[in-house]
C-alpha cells in the first residue's frame, strides 16, 4: 500500500475503532435522521397515503442534517484533546489525512442511509427496492459530494468558537447543487414511470460535482489547515 493510502487507511481505521467503542456519532446521527423522517411522515401521510413526490426531498434533507451532525462530532473529537494538531504534525501527506477522515464519515453516513432508505420506502411508499441499484448510486454520489465539502469545512472550523453555527452556514450554500441533483435524480427514480435518461443526467452531474469538490478539497486542505 502506498504511503498516501496507508495513512488514509490508518486514520479511517482509528475513527472506526473509536466509533465502534462509543457508538456516539452513529447513534445520535441515526436517531436524528429517523426522527426527521418520522416527523415528516406524521405531517405528510394521511390515511396511509403520503403526499405526492415528497419522499426524495425528505430522504435528502435527513441525510444533509444528519451528515452535518456527524461532521461536527467527528472533528469535535479531534478538538477535545487537540489530536488534530498531532495529525497535522505527522510527516504524512496532509491530503491523506483528509481522505481518511472523509472515508470514515462516508462509512458512517452509509450505515445511516442503509437504515434510512428502507424507512422512507416503508413510510412514503417509495420504490426503494425495485430501484435499489440506481438509488444506491445516486446516494453514494450525493453523499461523497456533500461530505467532501463538509469534511474540509469541519476541519477548517475545528478551532473556531462558533463552529456549530458556522458549519451549516458555510456548508449548505456550497452543497445546494448536490442536494438539488440528488433530489431531482431521486424524484425521477421514484416517479411511476422512471425516466432512466433523466436519472442518468442527474447522476452524471453528481459525479461531476464529486470530482470538482474532492479535487478542490485535496488542493486546499494543506494551506487552510496550516494557518
Amino acid at each position, binding site marked *: 500500500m502506498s504511503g498516501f493510502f*496507508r495513512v488514509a487507511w490508518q486514520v479511517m481505521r482509528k475513527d472506526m475503532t473509536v466509533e465502534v467503542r*462509543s457508538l456516539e456519532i452513529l447513534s445520535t446521527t441515526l436517531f436524528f435522521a429517523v426522527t426527521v423522517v418520522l416527523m415528516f411522515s406524521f405531517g405528510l401521510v394521511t390515511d396511509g397515503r403520503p403526499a405526492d413526490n415528497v419522499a426524495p426531498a425528505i430522504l435528502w434533507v435527513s441525510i444533509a442534517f444528519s451528515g452535518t451532525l456527524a461532521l461536527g462530532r467527528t472533528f469535535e473529537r479531534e478538538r477535545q*484533546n*487537540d489530536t488534530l*494538531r*498531532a495529525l497535522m*504534525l*505527522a*510527516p504524512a501527506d496532509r491530503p491523506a489525512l483528509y481522505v481518511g477522515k472523509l472515508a470514515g464519515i462516508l462509512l458512517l453516513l452509509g450505515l445511516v442511509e442503509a437504515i434510512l432508505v428502507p424507512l422512507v420506502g416503508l413510510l412514503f411508499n417509495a420504490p426503494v427496492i425495485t430501484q435499489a441499484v440506481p438509488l444506491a448510486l445516486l446516494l453514494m454520489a450525493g453523499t461523497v459530494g456533500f461530505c467532501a465539502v463538509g469534511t474540509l469545512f469541519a476541519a477548517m472550523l475545528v478551532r473556531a468558537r462558533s463552529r456549530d453555527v458556522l458549519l451549516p452556514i458555510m456548508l449548505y450554500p456550497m452543497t445546494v447543487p448536490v442536494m438539488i441533483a440528488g433530489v431531482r435524480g431521486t424524484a425521477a427514480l421514484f416517479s411511476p414511470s422512471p425516466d432512466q435518461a433523466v436519472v442518468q443526467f442527474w447522476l452524471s452531474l453528481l459525479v461531476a460535482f464529486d470530482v470538482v469538490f474532492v479535487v478542490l478539497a485535496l488542493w486546499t486542505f494543506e494551506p487552510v489547515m496550516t*494557518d
Partner: protein
Amino acid sequence: MTRLSVVDVARHYGRRKALSQISFSCQAGEIVGLLGPNGAGKSTLLNILATLLQPSRGSVTYGEQTSADGAAVRAQIGMLGHDLFLYPELTARENLEFFGHLYGVTDARATARRALERAHLADRADDFVSGFSRGMRQRVALERALLHDPRFILLDEPFTGLDQSSTAALVARLQERQQAGCVIVLATHDLDVADSVLSRAIYLKDGRIVGTDTDTRGLIDRYRRVIQS
C-alpha cells in the same frame, strides 16, 4: 546538522502582534526554555517551530531545512502539547501504534512496545488512556512525541499537573534525549524544575524577547527581575 535557527520571526493576528522580532538559535544537545507570563507568545512560538503556524515575517531553519520542506522537516520534529494529543477511547498501545504508522515508523508494533516499556507502562498497554492518571498520560504522550526519533523536540508546559516522581521521570527522559544530541525547546511556568534542566532560558514578554540567560541557576529571581522590569 541539528541546529535550530529562528531569524526575525513575527506573527500578527490582524492588528494584534503575538510575536515580534524573535531571533535565537539552538545547538544540538541544548535544552532551551521559553519563559514568560501568560500571553507572552510562548505557545505561538512553539506552534511556529512545529510548522503548525506560518510566521507573518522571518524564517525558521531546521539544520539545512525550512518549514517549506513539509513532511521531510515534520519527520524531524516531535511535539508534546499542553493537551496531550492522545485519543482517550484508544488504549495506550493503540495510540502509539496509530501514531507510529502515521509517522512512518518501520515496525510500529515493536516501536510502541518499546515505548511503553520506557514509559514503565507495559503492564497497562491494553488499558484505555481515559483511565490513566495525568502523569501516566503524560508519559504516553511524551513517548508518542518521540516515537519517530525526532531531532527537534518541542514541549508546551510539560510539567503541568505532574507529581515529583513523574516530573523526575520526564526530566530524565529529556536529559537522555539531550545526550543523544537533540535540540529541545520547552515552554514552562514551572521555574523550580526549569532551574535544574535548562541549558539556556529565553524570557518572553508581550511577544518579544526581553532577555536570555545561560546561567540557569537561581532562575526564579532573575525571571522576576526581567519580567517585572
